[in-house]
């Protein structure tokens, strides 16, 4: 397939273009950004470098300006066809970025993706961009500690516009008597916890995420009598589940995620008794987490959960990792307008 400009508007007023050059993940990267860009009254094009995902994306987003370029010459044609173009956004650092980085008149901005934690490598290669828009200060610290000379790199905190609604919905605390549980394995303590929550504490309903959904029937058998208070979901439904509210989260060392910070709720983390808690390094630092290894420790935490003594620490990390202030201030939009 050669150059495809069929979706480019005649006399387009495109100011920005998002470069999608992943071999497999373009669909997810575009889904992560397209709704955000759609919120603002600016024209943007999406340049796809892989023909298979191009075909899929023009089907999924038929009204958007999704373009395909295979070669560097195709890329040049596409740039020249957008006379007002000022900036190119990059969701991933790829070998094909060089085809655009040779245009000195454009501003090159790396904005990452939802999976940035896994995909970002904090290498010198990122110095090619003019600006890197990051969610929080932790990414700036990562760049600065990864190599000595960050040079001209302009690192800007823009927060995470994709989770603004979550921040707003969870600003105030409201007791829901509902707990979120997501454990990667099924340790015996899970049954003890569920039993405690459902019987002794007797005021909670449970939303349970399980990796092996096939075991759900066995689980229900074991908590017979309370099954109406337990909703269980497979792992791939986690984002749907999180749209409802919880009093707190119970996870383990493999399932704890920075994303949970946005919900402004206590985070309880089960740590196997054979693991030394003091040497544990999790995505969220330990001082913002309620760690427990047995039933007694769990009960002690739950007893005082309303006091939530780690809230201030959690707030600090919410800002540090997710840029809550910048998200709520719409810093992303401000930067877009500034282009």
């Amino acid at each position, binding site marked *: 397939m050669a150059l495809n400009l069929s979706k480019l508007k005649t006399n387009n007023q495109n100011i920005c273009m998002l470069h999608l050059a992943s071999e497999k993940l373009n669909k997810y990267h575009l889904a992560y950004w397209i709704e955000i860009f759609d919120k603002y009254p600016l024209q943007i094009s999406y340049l796809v470098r892989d023909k298979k995902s191009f075909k899929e994306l023009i089907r999924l987003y038929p009204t958007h300006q999704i373009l395909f370029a295979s070669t560097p010459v195709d890329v040049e044609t596409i740039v020249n066809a957008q006379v007002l173009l000022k900036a190119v956004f990059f969701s991933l650092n790829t070998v094909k970025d*060089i085809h655009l980085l*040779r*245009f000195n008149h454009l501003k090159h901005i790396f904005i990452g993706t939802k999976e940035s934690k896994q995909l970002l490598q904090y290498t*010198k290669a990122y*110095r*090619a961009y003019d600006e890197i828009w990051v969610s929080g200060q932790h990414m700036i610290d990562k760049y600065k500690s990864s190599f000595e000379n960050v040079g*001209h790199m302009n690192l800007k905190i823009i927060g995470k516009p994709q989770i603004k609604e979550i921040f707003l919905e969870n600003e105030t605390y409201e007791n829901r008597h509902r707990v979120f549980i997501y454990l990667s394995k099924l340790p015996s303590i899970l049954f003890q916890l569920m039993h405690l929550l459902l019987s002794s504490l007797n005021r909670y309903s449970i939303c349970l995420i399980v990796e092996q959904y096939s075991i759900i029937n066995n689980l229900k058998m074991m908590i017979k009598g309370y099954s109406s208070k337990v909703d269980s979901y497979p792992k791939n439904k986690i984002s749907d589940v999180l749209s409802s509210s919880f009093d707190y989260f119970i996870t383990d060392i493999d399932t704890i995620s920075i994303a949970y910070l946005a919900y402004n709720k206590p985070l309880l983390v089960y740590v196997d008794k054979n693991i030394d808690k003091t040497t544990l390094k999790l995505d969220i630092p330990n001082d913002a987490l309620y760690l427990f290894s047995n039933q007694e420790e769990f009960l002690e935490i739950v007893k005082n959960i309303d006091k939530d003594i780690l809230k201030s620490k959690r707030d600090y990390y919410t800002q540090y990792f997710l840029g809550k202030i910048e998200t709520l201030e719409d810093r992303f939009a401000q930067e877009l307008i500034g282009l």
Partner: protein
Amino acid sequence: MNKWIQFKEQPLRFLKDIMLKPKRVEMNYSSLSPYTHLLYTGENITGFNHLNLWIPHFIEANIDFLVFVRNLKLFHFLKKEYPHITVLFAKSQTELDVYLQQLPFLKACFYPSNTGKNLHLLHFNHLKHIFIGHGDSDKTASVHKYFRVYDENWTAGEAHIDRFRNAGFNFLGLENIRVGRPNLKEILELSEVAWQERFEGKINLLYLSTWEGVVFEHDYTSVSMINTAFNNIYTTFDEINIKLHPWIGRRESNLLNTSKVLEKSLKEKNIKFSIASKDTNINILIKKSNIFICDISAVVTDCLAANAPIFVYIPKNKGIKLSKSKMGYEDYTYVFSTVDELVTKIDTVLGGNDYLREKREEAMQYILGKEETLQNQFTKQLINIKN
């Protein structure tokens, strides 16, 4: 690509890959450990010319270096041309990573060109990444934002640094270091003799063309007018040597027979001439010439080392985008856009008025880094990294 899919979709390529792929036994990791310098290219076979420019100087510096390539054909070609140096090949980034883990003393990687695959090596933050280029050109490709991924940019002279200063973007993290053009040292030494006095007073012309470019806007070649030009000027020269760009005719098929047309025409004129093959080292041709006609490309600066008049074709109405330095082509070369202009300027210069001589000598320092070249600055910098 999955092997099964490749077998179905590209059976010939599949078989070729199997035939050419280096055997595991060649990958003796333990023998890799002493290397401190790595010369890298992500280019295909065309990368040979880039590497060939530098390998002799890495050898001369007597350092532990290896060459790393990403193209099988180039890998085998290099092994044949340089059997005594270590050459490695990796198809994927994963393979490259495995090799790099076996190089505990590696300090720096050197890049002769900007290719997408440079990214795979740039992930190693503990290494120094140095761009060394493969010539000095005023084309905009010689200065763009991608250069900022490197820690250092080793330039010939001050001109390339000025191009960055005038490019309009911040390059704060990139350190520019002047090292001269070691491959031109021999020519620079020969140029101490005035051009008119070389070759027992004979005037030998060298014509170096570029190709017609990917698109019309990038067509800077003079090939369509050069035969007419030769008809007007051939009597002025004792010898005419020609090297055409190997890609001539790629876009404009009517240019494919350029070599034959020129050969036929020059034969009829009964003048001593040669048309060099694409593999001929350009420096050999420069050494035996004392007048040059060139198109816009890095060869102009190669010819500059000979300190003899250079006539550069600048096509009219093309809006050529050149990166800006303190000296443009018009400052140190005799630029022309038509045959008449070329003929007039050649007559003037060969008539004894080489009015750009002083500027040309200034350009030799400014663009080529003549002093740094003669002082072996490149070798000294390589050794500095080792220490």
